[in-house]
Structures are given as C-alpha cells and as structure tokens.
C-alpha cells in the first residue's frame, strides 16, 4: 500500500467528502468534511492498522487546525488528517480518546496549551500547565502575552 492506493481505498468509501488531498511518495494530507471525520479516523485506526503518532494543533489566527498524524509502520508512509476548529469563546471538538486510548494525554496537552475543549475526554484534569497559570491562559496561542506574564 502507498499513499495513492490508500487514498483510492478511502475515496471508494467516503467519496467526495474526503475532500482535497495532497500527496507525495510517503506523505498523504487529507482535508475531509468535518461530518465524516470520526468515521474516517475509525476506519484508519481499526481497518487499516494506522498508529496514531500525535495530534498537532496549529493556531492560524482566525481558526485552529488539528492535524491527526497516523503512521503506517509496515508500509512506510504517514497520513495526516486535518480538522479545522472554529476559534470562538469556547472552541471545542469531539474526543477520540475513547476509540484510541493513546490520544488521552495528547488531547489533554492541547486542552491546556491551546484551550480547545475535547468533549468526552475521559480525564479532563491538568497534566502539564503550571498551577500559577490561570484556566484562561493558553501559552501556545499566538496571541498569548508573554511579556506581561507575572513572574511567579
């Protein structure tokens, strides 16, 4: 299996909703419609044995974009599924930690650092962030004010 055959397999199931894709010999970037996102992740993890490497969050000023990186160990390529998250008062999306237990810590880190709420994450507790930073301080956001941070 390589990125193009894998993409064909997925578009056979999801059709046009798979969205625009970008690929080269060992990378595949997918921009699916948000409505099929959960089914797509389930298909990659359960049916095609993709291993969730990590989730990257990118702050694009007007919205957030979550990048779910799946590695196919035996096949030697990486698929990235992109999911935009609206940047409003309380940005949120659905958790995948109940499907992939390894995602729990990754989502908790993003919750603290970017303030994106992962609904139904099984352990919504603080993991990394210092006790002296408030619940509304999100250090990895681009507009986080580093200069005027209290020194304690």
């Amino acid at each position, binding site marked *: 299996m390589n990125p193009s055959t894998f993409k064909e397999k997925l578009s056979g199931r999801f059709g046009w909703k798979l969205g625009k894709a970008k690929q080269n010999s060992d990378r595949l970037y997918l921009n699916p419609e948000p409505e099929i996102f959960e089914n797509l992740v389930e298909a990659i993890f359960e049916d095609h044995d993709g291993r969730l490497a990590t989730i990257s969050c990118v702050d694009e000023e007007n919205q957030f974009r979550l990048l779910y990186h799946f590695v196919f160990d035996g096949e030697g390529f990486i698929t990235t599924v992109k999911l935009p998250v609206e940047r409003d008062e309380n940005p949120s999306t659905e958790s995948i930690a109940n499907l992939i237990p390894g995602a729990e810590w990754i989502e908790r880190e993003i919750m603290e650092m970017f303030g994106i709420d992962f609904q139904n994450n099984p352990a919504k507790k603080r993991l990394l*962030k*210092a*006790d*002296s*930073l408030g619940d509304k301080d999100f*250090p990895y956001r681009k507009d*986080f004010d*580093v200069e005027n*941070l209290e*020194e*304690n």
Partner: protein
Amino acid sequence: MNWKSWGISKSPWLYHVNTGSCNNCDIEIVDCLTPKFDVERFGGKLVGSPRHADVLMVTGPMTRKSKPRFERILEASAKPFIVAAVGTCACSKGMFHDAYNCIGPVRKVTEALDEEIMVLNIPGCPPRPEAIIDGLVTGLNQLKEVKL
C-alpha cells in the same frame, strides 16, 4: 572555619534537584558518582532526602511548576547547606532566557527566600564531570573561610 563548615567540606552529602533541566546535567551528576569519576573519594554521596543534604545540586532553568516545590525543599533542608547551580540553565537560564515558563535562575529564587544562602555556579552545557567536581572542590574550599 568553624566546625559546621569543616563538617560539610569534609563529606558533602549531595541531594539532586531537577527544576526543569534537559537531563544532560543530571546524568553528568550521576556520572560523577560512578566508577570513573567517583566523588565518594571526597566523601560525596547522593542522598534521598533534603533533610540529609549538605549540598543541593540544582539543575535546570526553574520552571513555573517546580518553583514552589523547590522553595519547599529549601525550607526542608537541614541548615546550614549550600546550593550548587549545575549547568548554564541553573546559573543564568542560558538558552531559555526568554521562555515563558522559565522563571529562574536559581540564585533569584534563593535570594528571594533568604539572602544568606550560598550559591555556587558551575556553568557548562552540560558541565563535564571534571568541571562539576572542580566546582564543588572550589566551593568547598571557600567554605572554610565562611562562618556558617
């Protein structure tokens, strides 16, 4: 030299505190204890509790989360003790000088708590075991002139 500083300089018991370092200085400190460098020759020994310690070996640029814990360690340590800031991060924050989560260096925290605490700086990224031993010996020799 009074008997307290004499005691410390003869067999400094070390307690290792990592305040957010990258592990490099920490493994070099542990390296000092293993056969090749062997600080037990000088009576130095790694202990498991700050209450037994004479020298606190502090590494790292002091992250926000570890600062309150470090202050509690300073309070818990049996006095008199000295603090050795091992590595450039602990001495001056080094390459993390503008990181949002690093509020060190070590001297700033100890001075805010008690100006009397003696801080030894051992720079290097990471300092070689030889440098750590050299720094310790230099510091302990100076102790002989200080009244604790």
